[in-house]
C-alpha cells in the first residue's frame, strides 16, 4: 500500500471531519440558539383558534329595566378537513337547517381551516344537530342581541351587526364599553386539521362587556311614544319627535322618534327610520327660537321688560316687507305681550335693538352653532348665516326662527338654560357604567358648560313663557293644576335648501313647573295634514305628556285645577295581587288599557296607583315579578302572548326554553300556559297570527 494513497485517505478523512464540524455547529445553532423562535413559530402554526364571543353588556333604563340584552345562542361551524362524508353531511344539515344543499356543499368542501355554516341558531335546531354527532361539525357559543321592548327607544339604542359590533345609536357610541374582549379556545392540530393526540390546548376567557344605565326612564319614554304615536296617526304626519330632559343636569328622560322601527328585525324597515333625527337633522326652529331672541335682548340690556313694541301687521326691512301672522297687527305691546302673542313684527324690532353683534354672540352662547355634545353618534350642528355675511333682513327673519336651522336637541338645550337659571348643560343618555355584578364602575356626570344668561334674565323669560301657556298662543298646552311655560312653533320645512310650501313642522317647546322647572319637553310633528299650527297640533301632545309625566314624577300640583277638562275621567282600580292578564281585561272594561312589565304573571305594583283619577284611554303599567321559586331544574314559563316571533323566542331562550311556532305575526296562544313550571329545555308551542292589535 502506497504512501501517497495513505496520505490522500488522511486528507479525505480531514475533509469529512471538517464537514461534520460544520454540521455540528449548524445543529447547535438551530437547536440551542434558534430553537425557541422556531418552536414558537411551529406551535403558532399548529394551534388553531376557535373564537369565543364575550357577552355584550346590558342596557338598562334609569330604574334598572332592561332595554337591550344578549342571550347565548349556538353558532354552527365546520372544520372542512375533518368531515368524513361531505355529501351526506350536507344532505343531513340541509334538511335540518333549511339551507340549500349546494350552498352547504361548497362550505363543507372549502380548503380552509374554519368556516361558519350558520350563526345564531335556535336552541332546538342546535340540539338536533348536536345529537347527530357529525365529524367536522361543531358549535360555539355566540351572543345574540335582543331588544325586549321592540321599537321603544329604538333609534337611541341602535343596532348591532352579526359580530355583535355596534352599528348605530348607543350600541355604536358605547361599543367599546358594551362589547368586551373576544376570548378563544385553541387546540393543536395536524396538517390536515385534525386534533392531535397529546395536543396542547389553550383557553383565553372572554372579557364580558360592561352594562350601561341610561338616563331614559322607561315609563316616561313609553308615555312620550304613546302620545307621539297617537298624534302622528291622527294628523297623518310624516313623523315627529319628543325630547324630555331634566334641565338641571342635561339627563334625557325620553327621546321618542317617529317613524320607528324594531331593532330585532331592523332589516324590515327603511334605514332612515333608524336615524336619531333629534340630533342628526336640523330644522328651521320657527317660533320656538323666539325665547333666545328675547334672552339675547334682555341679557345684553338692549331691551327691558317694560319696553313697548308696535305691530301694524307688516313692516319694511330694506327692500323687503315682512308680515305678522295676524294681518291686522297686534298694536302696541309690552315685551311680555310680544312673546305671548308670538308677534313676528315685535321680535324683529327686539332683534334690531339688540343688534347683529349681540344677537350672534347669544346664538353662539346658546349653542346654536355647535353640536350639543350629546353622547350619540352623528350629531349635526346648526346652520346659521355667517355673521360677516348677515344682512339686516337676515337678522329680522332669524329673530322669529327662520333661515337658520338647528337640531331639536339644540332647542331643548337652549330652553333648559332658561329653565335652570341660565346654564348650558350637556344633554346625555348614559348615567352609569356597571359591571356584571351590578357594581357601578363609572358615573357619567356632566358639569354645566357655561352660564349664558343671568338668573334674573332667566326668571323674566320664565314669566313671559308661562304667560304664553296661561294667556297666549300655547293655551292648549295647559295641564290642570300645574304652572307651565312654553312656546309654540310653526315653521316651513326646508327641503334641499328651499322652503317647501305647504309643508310645515308644528312644535311646542316648554317646561314645567314654570317656577321650579323639573322637566323640559319638546314636541315636533313633521308635516301634519290639515291643521298645522304648533299651538293646535303640538301643544295638546305637550299637555298630555306633561300631565302623565308630572304625575309619574310625583311633582305636586302648584294650584287647584282651574277647570277640570270636559273629558271623561275614571278612577284607577287596585290591581296589585291580581293576574296580569285578568287585570288588563279589567282595565279594558272601564275604558283604560294595561301594559304588562316584567316576566311574572301577578301584578306586584302599578302606575298610576289605585285611586288616581285619570283620563279615559290612559295606559296603566302593571309591574309583575316572579314570586314563587321554581324547583331544581325547573323553570317558569313566561308569557309570550302579544310578542313577535323573535321577541318570543328570545324571551323563552332567556328562560331556558325553546319555541315551536306556528304561523306568523304575534303570539295569540301558548302551551304550556305562562306561570306553569316545566323542566329546563322544554319546548313551548305557540300560535302566531298577523291580525292581533298591539
Amino acid at each position: 500500500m502506497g504512501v501517497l494513497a495513505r496520505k490522500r485517505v488522511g486528507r479525505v478523512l480531514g475533509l469529512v471531519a471538517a464537514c461534520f464540524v460544520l454540521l455540528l455547529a449548524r445543529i447547535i445553532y438551530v437547536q440551542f440558539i434558534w430553537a425557541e423562535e422556531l418552536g414558537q413559530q411551529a406551535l403558532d402554526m399548529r394551534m388553531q383558534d376557535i373564537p369565543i364571543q364575550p357577552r355584550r353588556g346590558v342596557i338598562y333604563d334609569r330604574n334598572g329595566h332592561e332595554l337591550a340584552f344578549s342571550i347565548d345562542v349556538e353558532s354552527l361551524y365546520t372544520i372542512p378537513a375533518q368531515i368524513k362524508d361531505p355529501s351526506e353531511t350536507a344532505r343531513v344539515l340541509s334538511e335540518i337547517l333549511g339551507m340549500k344543499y349546494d350552498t352547504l356543499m361548497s362550505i363543507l368542501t372549502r380548503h380552509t381551516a374554519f368556516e361558519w355554516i350558520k350563526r345564531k341558531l335556535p336552541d332546538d335546531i342546535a340540539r338536533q344537530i348536536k345529537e347527530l354527532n357529525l365529524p367536522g361539525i361543531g358549535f360555539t357559543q355566540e351572543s345574540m342581541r335582543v331588544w325586549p321592548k321592540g321599537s321603544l327607544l329604538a333609534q337611541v339604542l341602535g343596532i348591532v351587526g352579526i359580530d355583535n359590533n355596534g352599528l348605530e345609536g348607543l350600541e355604536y357610541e358605547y361599543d367599546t364599553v358594551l362589547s368586551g374582549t373576544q376570548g378563544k379556545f385553541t387546540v393543536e392540530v395536524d396538517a390536515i386539521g385534525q386534533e392531535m393526540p397529546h395536543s396542547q390546548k389553550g383557553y383565553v376567557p372572554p372579557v364580558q362587556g360592561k352594562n350601561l344605565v341610561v338616563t331614559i326612564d322607561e315609563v316616561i319614554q313609553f308615555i312620550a311614544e304613546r302620545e307621539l304615536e297617537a298624534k302622528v296617526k291622527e294628523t297623518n304626519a310624516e313623523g315627529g319627535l319628543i325630547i324630555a330632559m331634566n334641565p338641571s343636569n342635561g339627563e334625557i328622560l325620553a327621546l321618542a322618534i317617529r317613524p320607528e322601527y324594531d331593532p330585532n328585525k331592523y332589516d324590515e324597515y327603511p334605514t332612515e327610520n333608524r336615524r336619531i333625527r333629534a340630533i342628526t337633522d336640523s330644522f328651521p326652529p320657527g317660533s320656538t327660537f323666539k325665547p333666545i331672541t328675547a334672552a339675547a335682548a334682555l341679557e345684553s340690556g338692549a331691551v327691558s321688560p317694560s319696553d313697548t313694541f308696535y305691530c301694524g301687521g307688516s313692516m319694511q326691512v330694506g327692500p323687503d316687507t315682512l308680515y305678522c301672522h295676524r294681518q291686522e297687527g297686534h298694536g302696541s305691546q309690552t315685551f311680555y305681550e310680544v312673546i305671548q302673542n308670538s308677534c313676528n313684527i315685535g321680535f324683529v324690532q327686539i332683534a334690531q335693538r339688540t343688534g347683529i353683534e349681540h344677537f350672534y354672540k347669544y346664538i353662539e352662547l346658546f349653542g346654536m352653532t355647535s353640536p350639543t355634545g350629546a353622547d350619540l353618534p352623528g350629531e349635526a350642528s346648526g346652520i346659521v348665516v355667517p355673521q360677516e355675511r348677515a344682512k339686516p333682513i337676515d337678522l329680522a327673519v332669524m329673530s322669529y326662527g327662520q333661515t337658520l336651522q338647528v337640531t331639536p336637541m339644540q332647542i331643548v338645550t337652549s330652553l333648559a338654560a332658561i329653565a335652570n337659571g341660565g346654564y348650558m348643560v350637556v344633554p346625555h343618555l348614559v348615567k352609569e357604567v356597571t359591571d356584571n355584578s351590578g357594581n357601578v364602575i363609572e358615573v357619567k356626570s356632566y358639569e354645566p358648560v357655561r352660564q349664558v344668561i343671568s338668573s334674573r334674565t332667566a326668571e323674566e323669560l320664565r314669566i313671559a313663557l308661562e304667560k304664553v301657556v296661561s294667556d297666549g298662543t300655547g293655551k292648549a298646552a295647559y295641564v290642570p293644576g300645574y304652572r307651565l311655560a312654553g312656546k309654540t312653533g310653526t315653521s316651513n320645512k326646508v327641503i334641499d335648501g328651499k322652503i317647501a310650501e305647504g309643508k310645515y313642522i308644528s312644535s311646542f317647546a316648554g317646561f314645567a313647573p314654570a317656577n321650579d322647572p323639573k322637566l323640559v319637553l319638546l314636541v315636533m310633528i313633521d308635516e301634519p295634514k290639515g291643521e298645522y299650527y304648533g299651538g293646535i297640533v303640538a301643544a295638546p301632545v305637550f299637555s298630555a305628556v306633561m300631565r302623565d309625566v308630572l304625575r309619574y314624577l310625583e311633582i305636586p300640583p302648584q294650584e287647584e285645577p282651574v277647570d277640570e277638562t270636559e273629558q271623561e275621567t275614571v278612577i284607577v282600580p287596585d290591581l296589585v295581587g291580581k293576574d296580569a292578564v285578568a287585570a288588563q281585561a279589567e282595565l279594558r272594561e272601564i275604558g283604560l288599557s294595561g301594559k304588562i312589565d316584567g316576566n311574572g304573571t301577578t301584578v306586584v305594583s302599578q302606575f298610576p296607583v289605585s285611586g288616581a283619577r285619570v283620563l279615559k284611554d290612559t295606559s296603566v303599567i302593571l309591574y309583575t315579578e316572579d314570586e314563587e321559586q321554581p324547583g331544581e331544574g325547573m323553570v317558569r314559563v313566561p308569557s309570550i302572548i302579544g310578542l313577535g316571533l323573535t321577541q318570543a323566542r328570545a324571551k323563552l331562550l332567556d328562560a331556558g326554553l325553546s319555541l315551536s311556532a306556528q304561523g306568523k305575526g304575534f303570539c295569540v296562544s301558548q302551551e304550556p300556559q305562562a306561570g306553569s313550571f316545566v323542566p329546563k329545555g322544554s319546548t313551548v308551542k305557540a300560535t302566531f297570527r298577523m291580525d292581533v292589535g298591539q
Partner: protein
Amino acid sequence: MRRKRAQGIVRRGDPDYILFFAALTLVALGIIMVFSASMVKSIRFYGHPYYYLFRQSLWAGLGLTGMFFLMNYDCWRYRNLIFIAYILSLLLLILVLIPGAGQMRDGARRWLGIGSLGFQPAELAKFTTILFLADNLARTKEKIREFITGLAPYLAALGITFGLILLEPDLGTAVTIAGTAVVVLYISGAKLFHLAFLGAASTPLLYYVIMSEDYRRQRFLAFLDPWKDPTGTGWQIIQALYALGTGGPFGTGVGYSRQKWSYLPQPDTDFIFAVIGEELGFFGTGLVLLLFFTFAWRGYRTAMAAPDRYSCLLAAGFTTLISLQAVVNIGVATGSLPITGITLPFVSYGGSSLLVSLLSAGVLLNISRYANR
C-alpha cells in the same frame, strides 16, 4: 495477496468493533425512529402503526445477515465476479427505465418490483461501482496519472452509470456515486489537476441539469431563503427546522414528535434526522453525528491500514459512500444544503438503501480484520 494469505503472513484478526457497533447502533436507532416517524402514515394507510416497522426490521435482518456474511467472506474471493456484477447492475439500470418493468413512483422510475417488495437498481449500482473501481484501479496503478490512457476510461464507465441514473431521474444518487468515485480516483493516485479540471468542466453541466428541471431549480433556490415561499417550495425546509427547533436541546420524547403529523414531508426517509432532532433533541442529533463521524474515522483508518491496494480503495470507497450520504442528508435536514432526496444511511426507512449500507459495512469490517497492526 492470495499468495501472502496462503503463506500465512497476514493473519485474520478481529474486526474493528468500534466500526461494528457504530453501524449496529445506527441501525437500531433507525428502526426505533422509523417506527415513530412512520406511525402516522402507517395508521392512515394501513390502519395499524407497525407496517413500516415490520418491513424495516425485515430488511435490517436481511442486511445484517449479508453484513455478517461479507464480514467473514474475504473480499478477495469474489474479485473475479466483480466485472459481471458491474455489468449486471448496468443492465438493471437500463431495465428500470423500461416502462412496465420499472415502477413509477412520485414522478420517477426508480424501482424494480417483486410484488410489494421494491428494489432500486441505483442503490445496487452504488455498491458495484465501488467494487468495479477498486478492482480495476488496483491493477491500473501509476497509469492513472495519465489522463487519456489512465483516467479517461474510468470517466467513460462512470459517465454511463451517472447518465442512466440521471434518466430515472435520481439526481441525488447520481451525484452520490459521482462524488464517491472522484474520491476513490483521487486516493488511487489520479492527478488533482485532472480531477479539478473535471470538476470545473462538470459544473456547467450540473448547473444545466438543476436549472432545466423546474422543481429542481425551485428546490435549489428555496434552500437559500425558505421563508420567501413558506407554504410552497420553502415548506419542507421550514418544517424540518421547526422540528429541530421544537426538539431543542432535550427533545419532546420518543413518539411525541408534533411535526411528523403531516407537517414534515417524508419523516421516515429524507427527513428522519429532523424527527430525531425533535424527539431526542440535541442528544439525538449529536449522537447521530458522533456515530457517523466514528464510522468515517474507523472506515478511513481501515483503508489506511488495509493490506493491499484493492482493499484500501474498497474500504475508502465504502466509507466515502456512507459519509457523503450522511453529510448531505444532515445538511438538507438542517437547511444547510439544497434538497436532494438522499436518505440517511442505516437510519432512513428503505430496504435497498439499508441493505446496501449494511453490505458496505460488511466489506469494511472484513478488510478491518486484515489491518496492518
